[in-house]
């Protein structure tokens, strides 16, 4: 039973560049949420996708955007990278209308130079 998988594991970018992170949900899950975890902090909710639409959004600027594909996988895009975007980006999946908690992937460590 494949869990949540994220790619790449690590990424180094420079200020102003853009980045795309990818997530495949746990088998059987249809909802994907993205979180940003800065060093020493708890994860912060970015947004959630269900049925290929953004359903909820946290307090993040429009530079952060996403997409969900028909196979439920998802991408997180960040434009015009800032030093403050350096963080661990976590993807979590769940099944809509279930009573089960979200399952997390190992994350992508993004470093901005």
């Amino acid at each position, binding site marked *: 039973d494949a869990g949540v998988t994220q790619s790449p594991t690590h990424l180094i970018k420079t200020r102003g560049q853009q980045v795309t992170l990818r997530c495949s949900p746990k088998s059987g899950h249809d909802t994907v949420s993205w*979180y940003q975890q800065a060093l020493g*902090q708890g994860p912060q909710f970015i947004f959630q996708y269900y049925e290929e639409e953004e359903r*909820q959004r946290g307090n993040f600027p429009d530079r952060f955007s996403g997409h969900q594909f028909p196979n439920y996988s998802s991408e997180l895009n960040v434009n015009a990278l800032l030093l403050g975007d350096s963080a661990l980006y976590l993807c979590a999946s769940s099944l809509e209308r*279930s*009573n089960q908690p979200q399952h997390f992937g*190992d994350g992508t460590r993004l470093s901005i130079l």
Partner: protein
Amino acid sequence: EDKVVQSPLSLVVHEGDTVTLNCSYEVTNFRSLLWYKQEKKAPTFLFMLTSSGIEKKSGRLSSILDKKELSSILNITATQTGDSAIYLCAVVKAGGTSYGKLTFGQGTILTVHP
């Protein structure tokens, strides 16, 4: 604004000690509180507490939800070095989607020395 606060922020103990981690929350329309353990990467689920399930136990770990005090505790007895991790508390609000946005606290870093 929804708020989740954990204490202490860090804790150092020796193997065999018992620890209690605290989580308090201020959210409108509370639905559930979750505890996760984060070792190096992915947070792994420990417990979910709701109005219908305010106490959970699994081996040496247990958790209680106090809806009156808007708080929860996570207890770990007979700690082992493998318990060293960041313990995260998160709340989910009622209404809208099922298990949508998780609002996390800043975490408690637990270090267990041999």
